[in-house]
């Protein structure tokens, strides 16, 4: 008996070791690309062309970042991205909270109708062209509003918040009601303070999606460089280098241009890092909230 137990634990240990190896490999595959880009962004552009940069820069330089922060368009793009992220997340959270609270109120007379009006839009949408023409009709082409207004609420988040509110003890609301608080007071003094965790969660979701979006800039605001965003600028650089990579002629031409210390590739890496760092900075602190939202959303509404 004793012997058998011992043997099993050796086999167990081998399996444990294998599992850890597989998972470590996954971690490396996930993290390596980021480290690689980081290294290239700090490496001298002429040296990078020789290849062989992995996770440490060989010829350290800040030149690529200087170049990025010298470019007025990139600075505008950065500022626009920051503004739309803060504004979009703030307004998104407040709006979502209001709608979710109303829908969560079992005694609200139009609850079913309102809930359905919102729910339907998760499954049916007008599609790209009617939406594009609507923005055009409303004069929202080449405007900052187009970043905020059309997507002010993510309907799915209403359901995350609602299932959170449903999980709160109803006694608090009832007590406040007996004490003569009106609906607005219940909302601001009871619901909002209790909903802080879920507000953090959806606030982060909104912030990430605003920070990451490029398509609305591309489709609505591409002709006004004052309204450009960081992801869109990065997309343009990426597109250029892709076209270059696909044609040998263009590639050689590009290489000929890069004798002068900076190359589109190195600049691209620096922009990539600038666009990733804000997420990296907040991510460890808020990971908990992200995951909470994911599991909350999975609870059937």
């Amino acid at each position, binding site marked *: 008996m004793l012997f058998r137990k011992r043997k099993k634990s050796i086999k167990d240990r081998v399996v444990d070791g294998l599992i850890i190896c597989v998972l470590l490999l996954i971690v490396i595959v996930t993290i390596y*690309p980021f480290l690689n880009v980081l290294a290239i962004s700090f490496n001298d552009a002429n040296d990078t062309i020789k290849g062989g940069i992995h996770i440490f820069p060989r010829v350290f330089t800040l030149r690529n970042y200087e170049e990025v922060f010298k470019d007025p368009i990139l600075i505008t793009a950065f500022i626009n991205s920051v503004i739309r992220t803060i504004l979009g997340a703030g307004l998104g959270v407040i709006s979502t909270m209001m709608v979710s609270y*109303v829908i969560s109120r079992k005694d609200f007379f139009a609850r079913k109708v309102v809930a359905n*009006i919102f729910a339907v839009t998760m499954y049916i949408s007008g*599609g*790209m062209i009617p939406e594009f023409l609507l923005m055009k009709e409303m004069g929202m082409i080449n405007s900052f509003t187009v970043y905020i207004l059309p997507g002010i609420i993510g309907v799915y988040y209403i359901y995350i918040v609602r299932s959170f509110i449903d999980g709160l003890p109803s006694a608090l609301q009832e007590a406040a009601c007996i004490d003569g608080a009106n609906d607005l007071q219940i909302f601001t003094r009871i619901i909002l303070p209790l909903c802080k965790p879920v507000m953090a969660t959806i606030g982060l979701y909104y912030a990430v999606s605003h920070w*990451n979006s490029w398509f609305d800039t591309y489709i609505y605001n591409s002709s006004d460089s004052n309204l450009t965003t960081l992801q869109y600028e990065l997309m343009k650089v990426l597109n250029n280098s892709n076209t270059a990579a696909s044609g040998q002629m263009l590639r050689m031409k590009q290489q000929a241009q890069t004798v002068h210390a900076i190359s589109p590739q190195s600049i691209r890496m620096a922009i990539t890092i600038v666009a990733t760092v804000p997420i990296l900075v907040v991510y460890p602190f808020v990971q908990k909230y992200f995951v909470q939202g994911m599991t909350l959303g999975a609870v059937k509404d």
Partner: protein
Amino acid sequence: MNHPGYKIHKKTFIKTIVKQRYLILMVLPFLIWIIIFKYLPLWGWLMAFQDYRPKAGMGIFDYPFVGLKHFIALFQDPMFYNVMGNTLAMSFMQLIFGFPLPILFAILLNEVKSIKFKKLVQTSTYLPHFVSWVIVAGLFTTLLARDGIVNEMLLLIGAIKEPISFLALPRWFWGICTSAEIWKELGWNSIIFLAAIAGIDPTLYEAAKVDGASRWQSIKHITIPGIISTILVILVLDIGWIISIGFEKQYLLGNSIVQDYSKVLDLYILDYGIKLGRYSFGTAIGIFKSVVSIILLFFANQLAKRWNGQTVI
């Protein structure tokens, strides 16, 4: 009208409205918002049955109705079949490879005893979910470049003699796209399964251990049955989204050389509808896509009912 009961009803209705005025005020702006931004575009579906050319002073009913002309043109366009083929191919690859891997990953992660190591794996694998497709496409372009790490490794082990431009190989595009998607979402998609595993009664495992069950037997007889309903729900939802795989990764990773393999439905709409200004045709494609995805969703929902006893939607 003069029925007394009606009057009372009306009175209480007004009373309710006055009583719930704050609730109404809170939701009203967003009802208006959703009607303008989500329902008004549905009105635009009319365009698909007209020859729409934007002109000042023309109402939506002023354009000539042409019946199903644009739909017929769509079904006669060889490009449409190419695009559908790409969309479905990438969807199915995503379903076949992208669906089981997070489950496997969650099960593996659950076998890890060290909480610190578990945290490390989770923190790093959730991360790519939060970076944009623009960045992921950039990372993959770098990895797969002629002087990128993938070529370097393949050269090192002698699998190839010359570096390959992976992103310029049309036949590889579907695989690259699917890999990028898996790389980005593996960890994130496993959260739901990890949560399901965490919900399994731990006494079951203890009992199995006492009975001398091996690790594999525990997984097979406890873990998998414990999360099978979650697996089915997610599978069903994934089937529902088969046609709506988006276009970001295809657009950002694609280039003119691979376009026969990279063009998906949404890019087709973008090219024909917006860039060429064929609004009616583009809308017709959009309607086709919406109708198919709604049918798929209902079909998936019925499946869920049959398998799981409850609907997903």
